[in-house]
């Protein structure tokens, strides 16, 4: 990498990191796993004057259930998700997603926090978090605040995280029994961003009625997107083939993909439809286990 010149600090505490962010203002950029930022610096699309490397700050890479939430420290790596027994046994949607993120080398470094904080609709975790109605914990020198995932993404590379703040945790409500979830994306080759990706979490009651539906879409909208009408169409319904088809149809209709080398708008809408149907089926299958 031959980036533009920059200064660099690797603080050992959050307090020091906040102070550095305060001091350098808009010149500063947080370096977590680096797998979004460093490629941009390499291509000189980004030339931050000051990097605050938060890899030395301890206590930010946990994955645990606590107080009704699955709590994921912002510095947990994709590889940590891959290797977590808790995730594998109870949250297969994360395993679905993490194995589709880039390649093992990237997953050894890339963090869940960074994947979300980058604010890129092409990243995979945002859709998963939307489907699971996550909350994002944002910290600063003034303290902590919690932002629902629906209020987190502002625009292209823009999120609720302010210049003096650091995303420190993601909280996901522990789903009740009868819940299943799944994620898949179509990619042109391993490591590619999604042509289209769909995350689904469904809860069904004992009589087979849908009591929760969360559907998040990857890379088919300027920001990570919830397929709200699809969710509404399923809530309170029996999970029939017709209901599922309708939810899929609505997701395809509501997304806003743009043409690129992966495919045109028509193709991507169709893929959102196919994947929504397939992921609902897969989530239901998992819910029944």
């Amino acid at each position, binding site marked *: 990498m*031959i980036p*533009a*010149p920059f200064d660099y600090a690797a603080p050992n505490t959050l307090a020091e990191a906040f102070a550095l962010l305060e001091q350098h203002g808009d010149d500063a950029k947080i370096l977590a796993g680096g797998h979004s930022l460093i490629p941009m610096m390499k*291509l*000189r699309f980004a030339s931050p004057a000051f990097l605050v490397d938060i890899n030395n700050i301890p206590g930010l890479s946990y994955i645990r259930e606590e107080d009704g939430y699955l709590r994921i420290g912002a510095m947990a790596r994709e590889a940590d998700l891959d290797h977590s027994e808790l995730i594998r046994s109870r949250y297969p949607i994360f395993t679905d997603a993490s194995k589709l993120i880039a*390649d093992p080398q990237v997953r050894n470094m890339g963090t869940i926090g960074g994947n979300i904080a980058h604010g890129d609709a092409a990243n995979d975790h945002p859709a998963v978090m939307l489907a699971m109605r996550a909350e994002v914990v944002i910290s600063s020198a003034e303290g902590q605040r919690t932002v629902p995932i629906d209020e987190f993404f502002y625009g292209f590379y823009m999120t609720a995280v302010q210049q003096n703040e650091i995303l420190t945790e993601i909280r996901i409500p522990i789903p009740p029994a009868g819940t299943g979830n799944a994620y898949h994306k*179509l990619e*042109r*080759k*391993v*490591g*590619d*961003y999604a*042509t289209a990706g769909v995350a689904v979490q469904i809860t069904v009651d004992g009589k087979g009625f849908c009591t929760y539906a969360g559907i998040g879409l990857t890379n088919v909208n300027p920001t990570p997107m919830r397929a709200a009408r699809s969710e509404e169409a399923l809530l309170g319904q029996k999970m029939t083939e017709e209901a599922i088809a309708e939810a899929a149809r609505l997701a395809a209709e509501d997304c806003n993909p743009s043409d690129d*080398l*992966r*495919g*045109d708008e*028509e*193709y991507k809408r*169709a*893929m959102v*439809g*196919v994947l929504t149907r397939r992921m609902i089926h897969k989530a239901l299958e998992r819910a029944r286990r």
Partner: protein
Amino acid sequence: MIRCKTSKEIGGMGHSVKRKEDARFIQGKGHYVDDIHLPGMLHMDIVRSPYAYAKIKSINAEEALKIPGVLAVVTGKDLEKYNLHWMPTLMSDTQMVLPTDTVMYQAQEVAAVIATDRYAARDGKEAVIVEYEPMKPVIDPHKSLDPGAPVLRTDKPGKNDNHIWHWEVGDKTATEKIFAEADVVVKEQMHIPRIHVASIETCGCVADYDKVNNHLTMYMTTQAPHAIRTVIALVAGHVGLTEEKIRVVSPDIGGGFGGKVPVYPGYVIAIAVSFLVGKPVKWVEDRSENLQADSFARDYHITAEMAGTKDGKILATRFKILADHGYTDASANPSKFPTGLFSIGTGSYDYGAAFMEADAVYTNKPPGGVAYRCSFRVTEAVHAIERITDRFAFEIGKDPAQLRMENFIKKEDFPWKSPTGWTYDSGDYHAGLLKAMEVVGYEELRKEQAEKRERGELMGIGISTFTEIVGAGPSRDFDILGIKMFDSAEIRVHPTGKAIARFGTKSQGQGHETTYAQIIAEELGIPAEHIQVEEGDTDTAPYGLGTYASRSTPTAGAAAAVAARKLRDKARKIAAYLLEVSEEDLEWEPGKFFVKGAPEKAKTIQEIVFAAYTNHPLGMEAGFEATHYYDPPNLTFPSGAYICVVDIDKETGEIKVRRFVAIDDCGNIINPMIVQGQVHGGLTQGLAPAMYEQLIYDEDGNILNGTFMDYLVPTAVESPNWETGHTVTPSPHHPIGAKGVGESPTVGAPPAIANAIVDALSHLGVTHIDIPITPFKVWKILKEKGVAQ
């Protein structure tokens, strides 16, 4: 089954000797150009054009020169003072080193920044301000010859269109007559897309000019070090750099695939700067520069036609090519072959008439095209013949395997004269296809396909039975810039029986250090592990034309065998002297001469070599060395039978290559493990253009996929389980019966995959899809046919 004549200890031909070079490569101890650090070395980075076609109004280096460490910004005007602003291409066209007034393609070199370190050089590059006046470029080659199209090469006096050359071969009249009278004529338009070799190591050099001794050492990623030395002397002789003052060193190379044959402007600028300042100058491209500016491969638009009878006899073929060469013809073909060896495109089939013609045009795209793991346009030819053969089978409703079997050139008809003038040396096409069909379970697969079709599932089986043409080549026809395409070997055996062998070729991953040693071991009985192979240094290696187009084994490998045989003749004389018998009384077995009928009376090769230095017969020249320059009497014609099975997801268009069986015939095999490795790599590089790779430009000439984010190089994940095998039909004219294998799989795989995908959709009326065949493309077809929603 491969039979070995030598013991495992000697490790001659047929043994899967482990690659000698791997010990250093897998331990990170390879030594590449970028590992070279010389005292006082300067670094160069290159300012590149954002436009495909523009006038340069001004180049302002003021801000760049303010950056600490930036020493100079070199422009075309600077080089013009020394008449170094233009250079010849290998095809006797011309190419700018740096422009003085106009840029002709996006990413073209515009100026060079020289600095004391790599970072300052890049910062300097960002700070150079170039003012352009963009012009409307010519991007679509089909429009390049339109009357109103801007004439791009205004540097050529009198040039009034964008036409480069016309080429044709075959009997036009006879072919046209057959086409006019044939029962069946099929025709398809095919684009063999512009792709890039994308080797792991990009291109680069360290130019080290010593002012005191007037001597240039050029460390460089080149597949052809000697040819480069001669080219440098031709380009820079007028400033005093004559050939004896130039040493080209090609260190370890991380993949060449044809992309490291041409001379790129960066090399010339680095030499010019080093020459002027007397310090070493390093230039190493980054990945995007490599992908965007270095020579592309392919980019042939082909109209392919086949004429035949209703019952399936092929009668004639006709191919018409539009070749998009970009801004200059920078192909790396032998001089007399502007379309390379495309004329192999009559394929593996026995018919009497063919006509092929090509027109090459200039466009505002990077120059090329190189022979990407392909013996000069053979990939394009094989795609055309193998696709149109399938198209013909489909038209008459005959199984494509059956059709091929009925039309193959028969084993007993070799040497076989092709309608375009080649003499195929040997082949057994029936055996190859039969073996492939047996391994894949062809009949069962066809049944399964029929059942799946009933259920609305999409499955396809594709065949490619190709004939390759490699080992360029016989000096009567083959030269590059006038230099005949022989190749060379020099063997020196030391008194203790160990040897060093040097070659004019240059390995880029092929494993020459191992296979050449095995050839010598086979001939001399000296264990392969005792033979050190050296290439790539023009001061020590004998002259040769380098490694590309699967030519190393056919040429330098043959030279090694012949040189070793010269030594064996000498060894016989010494053994006769030592054993006090006549030469005729001696018999050879690998590693020793013994007296006929008295095997205990023997001298090992090691004893003989020692005697060559300590006790040689009176009147005989001392020492044990031989050199041979091998001029092949003919090319070699490897072949293969590939069968691919695909399943297609009818909702998403995703294609899964379920099976891929590759039966290669490369004649006698030197090292089965290395051949298998080469085939695996080659098949993956055949999968690439079939399903993933293409350099894509918009109408303004902007490259749309200039990084690995969007230029999709397949990985192990995308690669199916390659099932490989062999038939062995030795080349009758090659000293060791070998034919060359490196590029066969790259050439043969794309049509097998394309044929399989088209086959999966053939019941919908699909007869052709241009590669790369992506899920999006397939889905569009399925949508149009009412299969996908």
